[in-house]
């Protein structure tokens, strides 16, 4: 599906993008390129600046400095050309809860100036595709979180955009709804739609993205394929819990690199994620002495710790905003 991308211009190109809200420097010089037909995931914790980046790229707000082109059009000078061609599903539900699912889709069809018949057919097609047929003529206020999210995405697709933005598409969904959503997104990827998504979960980026950018406090601290990122993260390990301290210390002496925690009776063994290494480790365990075993794969916390040396912190708890900001500044203002 991405065989032709080399010949095409990038779908999104951002250079040195900056944005501040008063003293809060939310984006501090972002550079990224998203080739057409690929999926880019912006990974970061609360307050990293993900939504701000999406809002600039989707022409909702303007950046303070730098340039951003979407489908060859500059966001600041040709917003309407961009709006005609993109689809956006924001972080917060953007459906009209007083209307039914079908009416919401019809509204989008009308706003996209689809001819009446074509619009009605498109609405029906999307209702079927998103498993909303049974609820189609019910008020959207009665929908579950997962259904609202699906309707939200369906509304974005009414105009058949070739580039879509998804701001934290699966936040707040249960594991099953999340998998269903991923399936839908995968279908879009197969159709060659370019996708720019943001997420707080490494797993989600791993599942969907060709390329991941890790955003920390407004700076891209790392960029690469999911595999490349995970290779840089030494967070994988196997936690083996023992039945008694004696068994634990015996095992700790026998397995190289393992660290024992006597209090929880757990032995942590570094693990590279391969099946071979796991088989070898399991082969060396004494089934009588082991109570349980847990394989721990790297998550966002591990990525952050490895790449930035600190755990992800929500913006409200940022040191710059609290301890480092001298009180006198507040008084002076």
């Amino acid at each position, binding site marked *: 599906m991405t065989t032709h991308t080399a010949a095409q211009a990038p779908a999104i190109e951002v250079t040195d993008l900056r944005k501040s809200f008063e003293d809060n420097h939310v984006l501090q010089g972002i550079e990224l390129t998203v080739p057409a037909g690929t999926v880019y995931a912006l990974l970061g914790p609360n307050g990293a600046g993900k939504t701000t980046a999406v809002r600039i790229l989707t022409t909702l707000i303007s950046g303070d400095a730098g340039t951003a082109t979407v489908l060859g059009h500059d966001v600041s000078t040709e917003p309407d050309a961009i709006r005609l061609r993109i689809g956006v599903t924001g972080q917060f539900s953007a459906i009209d809860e007083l*209307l039914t699912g079908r009416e919401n889709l019809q509204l989008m069809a009308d706003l996209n100036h689809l001819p009446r018949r074509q619009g009605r057919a498109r609405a029906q097609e999307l209702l079927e595709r998103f498993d909303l047929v049974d609820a189609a003529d019910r008020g959207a206020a009665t929908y579950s979180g997962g259904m609202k999210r699906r309707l939200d995405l369906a509304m974005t697709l009414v105009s058949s955009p070739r580039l879509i933005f998804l701001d934290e598409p699966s936040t707040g969904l249960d594991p099953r709804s999340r998998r269903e959503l991923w399936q839908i997104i995968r279908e879009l990827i197969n159709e*060659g739609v370019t996708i720019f998504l943001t997420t707080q979960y490494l797993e989600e980026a791993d599942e969907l993205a060709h390329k991941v950018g890790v955003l920390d406090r407004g700076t891209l601290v790392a960029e690469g394929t999911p595999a490349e990122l995970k290779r840089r993260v030494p967070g994988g390990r196997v936690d083996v819990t023992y039945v008694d301290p004696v068994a634990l210390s015996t095992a700790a002496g026998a397995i190289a690199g393992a660290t024992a925690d006597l209090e929880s009776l757990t032995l942590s063994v570094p693990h590279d994620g391969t099946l071979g290494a796991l088989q070898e480790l399991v082969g060396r365990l004494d089934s009588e002495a082991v109570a349980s075993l847990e394989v721990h794969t790297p998550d966002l916390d591990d990525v952050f710790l490895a790449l930035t040396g600190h755990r992800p912190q929500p913006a409200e708890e940022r040191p710059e905003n609290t301890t480092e900001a001298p009180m006198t500044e507040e008084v002076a203002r």
Partner: protein
Amino acid sequence: MSAVTATTAPVNSGPNAVLDSWTMLRRNLLQMVRYKSLTLMLIAQPLIFLLLFVYVFGGTMGAGLPGGDGRSDYMAFIMPAIVVMTVVSVSLSTAYTIALDMEKGIVDRFRTMAIAKSAVLTGRVLGAIVFTVLAFVVVIAVAVVLGYRSDGTVLGWLGVIGLVLLMTLALTWATVALGLSAPNAETASNTPMPLMFLPFLSSGFVPTDSMPAGLRWFAEYQPFTPMIDTLRAWMSGAGAGSDAWLAIGWCGLIGIGCFLWARSLYTKVRAH
């Protein structure tokens, strides 16, 4: 480059103010039908005042009118104020629904689409006009059932309808602006409330010369008084004279001022 544009050529030819406003109007009318409790409450509000004033206060108040005599004279006297309250009542709901739109993500969705910038607001104002006309017809019909008879000419009633539309435009742009400036829908439903009380401090329910000096000064100069006096003249078959120009002037001033205010708020409000 050409490959990208070739595959992304949209069917949509871009923003179209008329088409997009029409779509937004239909959305608002649909919401009105869905949100029945609010719709009915808005129409009931002026009717409750009508019943209250005619049947509770009407007997005494009518006797106190210069040359007046009882309930039916008082009803004829307050009908213009009831019409104004109908307009105000509907316009108040616009502040709420606009603020609700802004609070939810849907306006952000509209902003990322190639929609005429004015369509969201224009749709609301057009919706308010349709709603006001509907409420106006219901209120007049109920009044007639209760015994209201007008001496107004056809021309006079055409004038009444024209002024009602003009007042709707002015007040709705005002409440659109108030709705946009409110931090949330809750506040938006409260801030324009004083508009509902202003008709009481006008010539609407008692002649202004029966008021104490300070209040009387306010009542004589506030915009609702020339509007009510004009409606009263036309509804009773008299000429309105300079009051009509004053009423139209006020509507124009409020309407244009608030339209500009609302437009600048809409393009500015962008934080979430």
